[in-house]
């Protein structure tokens, strides 16, 4: 008896929902709602979303993909108005290679004096924009939208492609009811994966459905005009169906210092792995990483680009003549490529215009440049191979898909050494890559086409060491000298910003927000010599570091170098913090006190740790007559702080800021 009731209730719920979300019919309750009780901060909520992907057979075109979307959105307030405008991107290369949006219709519903008023989306609210040679946009904006409105629209996208766009379960606003159905013919085999890094996991159900194709053929009877007959034949096949009925999907919320929010969105990723059409041999696309890298390797815009040497051989011969040390050779070739071919800011793991053309034009995409680098290194007898990667803005390659990669770099390996190289930026060096590339793992492809994973997260600690000498004058101004050395990523960041700029820019950068600080005689050593650390020296003077209150003097020993603001302000955090690379900030400070004063109080030495030494801050104070010496060291051995550790990390950082703010007090003798 009990089970029957449950079943009945289930039936009721289902039919109730089906009724509720019929296009063109909204309920008064939906219109009366003023906030989302599950997320009161939401400016709008998707009340209902239907996403239906299916393939239909057309005799002229074969299988075409149809994506049918139905969305009903509640707008609570003015801040939610942008949900009433939608922009849909469609591929638009040529007549036969374009996606099409059709059957777009919509309504806005408002409650006026207790009655539901409907306003139809008309042609004057729909726009088509040819954005550039690849894409067009269909955009529309709903009429008569006010705080409290419900909007609803349906449309279909028809695509000649078998590639299915990622299906998102999450928006930046909550979704109340989500119905997903993806039906793919058995001839098209997909790999399916839910983003494992998303906090929200929908429940997917797999099933099969019967389908059939009717073929019509015309046969001529052979005896004159009009004498042909039509016959039709029917072929049965199965659809693989993925469906999902989700309710109350939470909003995806952004936070600062997230590598890429999209990495944490709940989504279904589908990649065509194989086609198995009847009477046709199987064709595999992406069954495994091994298979994908093999396919990429066989792509003429990849593999072939590695084997061409005739365009550069003379130049490279001249470049490395007389050099025997392989690392020296590699360094020469790396610098040669960096100066000869500039990055046009296009990503890609396949060559855009061909390595030879890129070489002659002096510009190319990431593949043109790095594949050229690899073939030159190989030509010089160095073991160099490509590493396919996904840049930070492309997300993490989650499972075997060709789209998982969007960039290629180079690895060289030899006796006792191994280094990653990317020649797209002038200031990148062996193992110091552009930050966009530091995204978890890359796939190393050997020259027989086999492949393996390698780590991309840097493990070398980039250091920033500062020696500060300070003399306090009788008028309480301070003057002194600073020496600073920067290595690896810290050096690279400095070079990207200041190496090609006027030295004045750096002086301004140091002086900014430091009141009366005046920097002079700046010398920058190795600004462009990437094989050496950056060495900076300058003199400074300042009048606003010492504060005289009563007869006593107060100052912070780090002077203008102290960080005063904690960037981690939120109480909680949902995603990891990406610090890009491990680092070590060290300060060695020597201060000469003015005549007639002595130390009354001085901060205590201390050591603070984060997660068993993953982060460490030490503060050592030494007093020696008129001289004070401090050694302050802040080291992060890891560049990724997990959200579970956020609170501890925030407290760790707070203590660092507070310690740096502690004052030395001098009193008159």
């Amino acid at each position, binding site marked *: 008896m009990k089970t029957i009731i449950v079943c009945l209730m289930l039936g009721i719920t289902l039919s109730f929902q089906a009724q509720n979300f019929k296009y063109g019919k909204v309920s008064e309750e939906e219109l009366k709602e003023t906030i989302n009780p599950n997320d009161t901060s939401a400016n709008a909520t998707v009340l209902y979303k239907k996403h239906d992907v299916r393939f239909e057979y057309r005799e002229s075109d074969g299988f075409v993909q149809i994506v049918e979307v139905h969305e009903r959105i509640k707008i609570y307030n003015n801040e939610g108005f942008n949900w009433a405008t939608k922009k849909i991107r469609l591929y638009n290369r040529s007549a036969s290679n374009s996606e099409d949006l059709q059957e777009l219709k919509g309504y806005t519903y408002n409650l006026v004096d207790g009655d539901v008023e409907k306003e139809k989306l008309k042609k004057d609210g729909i726009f088509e924009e040819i954005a550039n040679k690849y894409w067009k946009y269909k955009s529309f904006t709903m*009429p008569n*939208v006010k705080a409290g409105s419900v909007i609803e629209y349906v449309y279909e996208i028809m695509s000649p492609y078998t590639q299915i766009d990622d299906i998102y379960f999450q928006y930046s606003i909550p979704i109340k009811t989500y119905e997903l159905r993806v039906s793919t013919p058995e001839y098209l085999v997909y790999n399916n994966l839910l983003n494992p890094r998303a906090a929200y996991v929908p429940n997917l159900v797999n099933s099969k459905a019967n389908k059939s194709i009717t073929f019509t053929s015309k046969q001529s009877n052979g005896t004159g005009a009009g004498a042909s007959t039509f016959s039709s034949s029917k072929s049965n096949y199965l659809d693989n169906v993925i469906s999902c009925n989700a309710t109350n999907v939470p909003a995806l919320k952004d936070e600062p210092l997230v590598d890429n929010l999209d990495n944490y969105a709940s989504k279904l990723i589908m990649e065509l792995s194989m086609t198995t059409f009847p009477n046709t041999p199987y064709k595999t696309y992406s069954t495994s990483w091994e298979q994908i890298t093999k396919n990429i390797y066989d792509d003429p815009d990849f593999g072939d680009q590695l084997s061409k040497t005739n365009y550069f051989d003379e130049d490279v011969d001249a470049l490395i003549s007389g050099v025997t040390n392989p690392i020296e050779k590699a360094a020469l070739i790396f610098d040669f490529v960096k100066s000869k*071919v500039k990055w046009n800011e296009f990503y890609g793991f396949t060559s855009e215009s061909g390595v030879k053309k890129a070489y002659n034009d002096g510009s190319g995409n990431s593949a043109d440049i790095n594949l050229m680098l690899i073939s030159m290194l190989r030509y010089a007898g160095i073991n160099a191979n490509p590493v396919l990667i996904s840049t930070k803005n492309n997300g993490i390659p989650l499972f075997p898909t060709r789209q998982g990669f969007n960039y290629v770099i180079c690895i060289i390996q030899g006796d006792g050494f191994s280094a990653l190289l990317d020649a797209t930026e002038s200031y990148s060096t062996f193992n110091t890559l552009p930050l966009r590339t530091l995204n978890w793992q890359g796939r190393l492809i050997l020259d027989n086409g086999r492949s393996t994973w390698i780590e991309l997260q840097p493990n070398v600690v980039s250091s920033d060491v500062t020696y500060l000498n300070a003399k306090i004058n009788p008028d309480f101004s301070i003057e002194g000298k600073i020496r600073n050395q920067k290595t690896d990523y810290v050096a690279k960041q400095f070079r990207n910003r200041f190496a090609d700029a006027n030295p004045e820019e750096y002086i301004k950068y140091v002086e900014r*927000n430091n009141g009366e600080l005046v920097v002079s005689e700046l010398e920058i050593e190795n600004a462009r010599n990437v094989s050496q650390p950056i060495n900076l020296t300058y003199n400074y003077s300042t009048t606003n570091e010492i504060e005289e209150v009563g007869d006593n003097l107060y100052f912070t020993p780090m002077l203008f170098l102290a960080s005063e*603001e904690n960037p981690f302000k*939120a109480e909680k955090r949902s995603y990891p913090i990406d610090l890009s690379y491990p680092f070590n900030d060290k300060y060695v400070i020597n201060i000469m006190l003015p005549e007639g004063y002595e130390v009354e109080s001085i901060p205590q030495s201390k050591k603070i740790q984060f997660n068993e030494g993953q982060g460490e801050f030490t503060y050592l104070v030494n007093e020696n007559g008129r001289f004070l010496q401090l050694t302050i060291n802040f080291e992060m051995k890891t560049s990724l702080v997990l959200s579970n550790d956020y609170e501890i990390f925030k407290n760790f950082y707070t203590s660092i800021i507070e310690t740096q703010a502690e*004052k030395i007090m001098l009193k008159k003798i």
Partner: protein
Amino acid sequence: MLKNILLTLSFILLSLSSMSQEEALFQSILIPSELIEKSNSVVRYDVTNIEVKAYNKYIYTKTRLITILNKKGNDDYGAAFQYDSNTNIKKLEVKVFDAFGKELKKIKKNDFQDVSAVSGSTLYSDTRFKYLDYTPITYPYSILLETEIEYNSTAFFPSWMPLDGFYSSTQFSEYKISNESDVDIKIKTSNFENYAIEKHSDFHYSAKNLKSLKPESYSPSFRSFAPYLKVALKEFEMEGVKGVNTNWQDFGKWMHDRLLVGTEELPEAVKSEIKSLVQGVTSDREKAKVVYNYMQNKTRYISVQIGIGGWKPMLAEDVDRLGYADCKGLSNYTKALLKEVGVEANYAVIYGARNITNIDSEFSATEGNHAVLCIPSEKEEDYIWLECTSQTNPFGYIANWTDDRDALVITPDGGKIVHTTSYSAEESLQHTTASILFSKEGAIDANVTIKTSGYQYALHEGIQTLPSNDQELNLKEYWDYINDLNITSMVFENDKDNVVFTEKVALSAKNYAAKSGKRFLFEPNIFNKVTGTPTRYKKRTLDFEIDRGFTDQDEFIITIDGSLEIEAQPKDITVKNKFGSYSFSIEKVSETELLYKRTYSLNKGYYPKEEYKAFRDFIANVVKLDKSKIVLISKS
């Protein structure tokens, strides 16, 4: 015969000398050093020729050679062209040269990037862009641009700026208009006197060796001091509509008659609805308030720009049906509603921006980037200005976007220039009060109230619409000098009638006061510190401007834990000068209570560069005084 030979000879000589000059131009290494100083790019040779064929047609030709010295100069090509169906780009070609004048690349019209001009808040526009997308392979390099464009819409006429912008110098630039039509052409030149510019005729100018300028903080906009020439035809055509423009009066009349008349018709139902809403309301101001509120609740801002729609507002009845429009459509719709209830209002063209930019009262032309509405009254300073693209602005409030500037008001009799509302330093008040408990551990626990009005209202009210997480972060940023700040509650009140915004915040911070042994260094100005000092310049080259004045008043009652006593405290101070005034005082109210009072105000003003140091010293002093400390020591 002899004559002929001479001619040929001189021709050869001429072309030789011009050749060598040309060759020199292509070699970046030969640029005079004073033009390289402070420059990211050098305009080597820029010649603009405009042939006016008729009131509705001109042909624009340009030859421009620019040398890019470093990567920051890569935006200075000047090889981007906007076009639509009235524009025919007949020729567009670029050649790239290296430092020695060797040709590196040739880019033809079809190799230019061609994109739609839809961006940001615009949903649709039929305007497109062609632009050069080139990856530099070496610095310096030079770009030679040659173009010829036919314009069949003449409402916008190319101006001449011999200096492109900051960090760009000019070796030679020339601008020439030849008038082959019977239309009169108006020209206005600005700031020519301080630069080496030669006038060859009323319509022909050239400039030589103009050094580049560097931006400096608080400097007024580039156009206000750089040489600038603007042009307008006295008869023109805009998207097929013929116009006249001898002065603002007749230009405004044209706008009224050709762009506004006939767009104001409203559906009957709306007419009666709005009339019933103002029933019993007597004053025009109150009626207008009702209408403005009605419009705000009914509409939203969506920008769609098609054809003459770039200047002509959408029909009021369409705005009513769709519930959205751009600034023109919303202003015009509100105007129609006001007319229905008997309140006269005028459409106005203006520059909408945080920076104050005027419509030029002396030179009529198609100017401005925004439309608002104004309700006239007897005196121009009493006009009520309505920003119709906002669903939240208080009635008549325009600070920070269209305040304190000249606008073109369109009346049925023609156009006139009127200055919009400006918010004085006295009415732009921020009043912060707080009661604070200071514990023996150095922590603070406080209740703060910030009330803002005038121009400062606009700086604060935005917080009310943010998600609560962001509201909290926003307050933490506002007080970013307080480490480990914990917000325990926040309440916001928006009094739109009186334009006062109130923030009530309860908060705490564990280690507010810096420690020094057994002493605390307590800064009594907890909630309103000036922390940034203006940039220092060894030699200031530009005048400076404070575009909006304001006044801050602060009163904090600080209760100090009984176990602590004051060892030292700063002296009260008052500073006053032409830039503004500053003062603070600390008064002992009881054994454990201090009252900290502070006022700070800055005046609006335009000052010569020589006074910058004094201004900077004033602000630096405020920064220093805001950090003044009370030393507290344990009694035991």
